[in-house]
């Protein structure tokens, strides 16, 4: 069961866990990324493409499902305006075996950062507004999966 969503609402993590866990999987791995209030950040805005962002997430989910033996996969990305503490992204991957669940989770969170049409804009308490620049390390992590 693959579930992919792009939402402007808060990610309802307990509800997503309930949906995902309905199968009773042997091993479940998860990753949650949240907005950090570092450096006086007051708002994180995620810009997305109305159609291609969700299509990109779905494509990644299917690549993961083809590569690892997964019994369930959930990929939810929030877009729009968020404040520190809000969840930005939720990845849940389950399998009969831990290595598959863990690897799929790591693959998805790495590739999310380089392959999907999403752009972060930060607003700080002093009024500065900055688009986030990609980090070289993110590309290094994403490319590990190319082999």
């Amino acid at each position: 069961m693959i579930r992919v969503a792009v939402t402007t609402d808060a990610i309802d993590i307990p509800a997503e866990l309930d949906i995902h866990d309905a199968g009773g999987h042997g091993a479940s791995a998860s990753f949650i990324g949240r907005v950090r209030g570092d450096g006086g950040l007051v708002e994180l805005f995620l810009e997305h493409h109305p159609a291609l962002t969700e299509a990109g997430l779905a494509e990644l989910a299917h690549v993961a499902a083809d590569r690892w033996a997964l019994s369930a996969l959930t990929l939810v990305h929030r877009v729009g305006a968020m404040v520190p503490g809000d969840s930005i992204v939720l990845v849940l991957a389950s399998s009969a075996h831990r290595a598959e669940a863990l690897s799929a989770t790591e693959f998805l969170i790495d590739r999310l950062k380089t392959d999907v049409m999403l752009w972060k804009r930060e607003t700080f308490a002093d009024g500065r507004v900055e688009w986030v620049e990609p980090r070289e390390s993110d590309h290094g992590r994403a490319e590990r999966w190319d082999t």
Partner: protein
Amino acid sequence: MAMTVSYFAWVRERMGVAEEVIEKPATVATVRELVAWLAERDERGALAFVEPGRIRAAIDGAMVGPDALLGDEVALFPPVTGG
């Protein structure tokens, strides 16, 4: 030839529009040529495409390289930063 160009993130901000229909000259066939043409077209384009190497593109939902041939639509944007 008319084509639709959409912009995202700081490319959109610098262009001042999210999407426009342009009449591109026949000499503009690839993403790279379109970016160069937009950079020369006006002040907004000069600002948005001052560093062409930082621009990414998607055609029909797939990320493409600078030498991809243009069709009816293209999206131009900075490197993505999701997750």
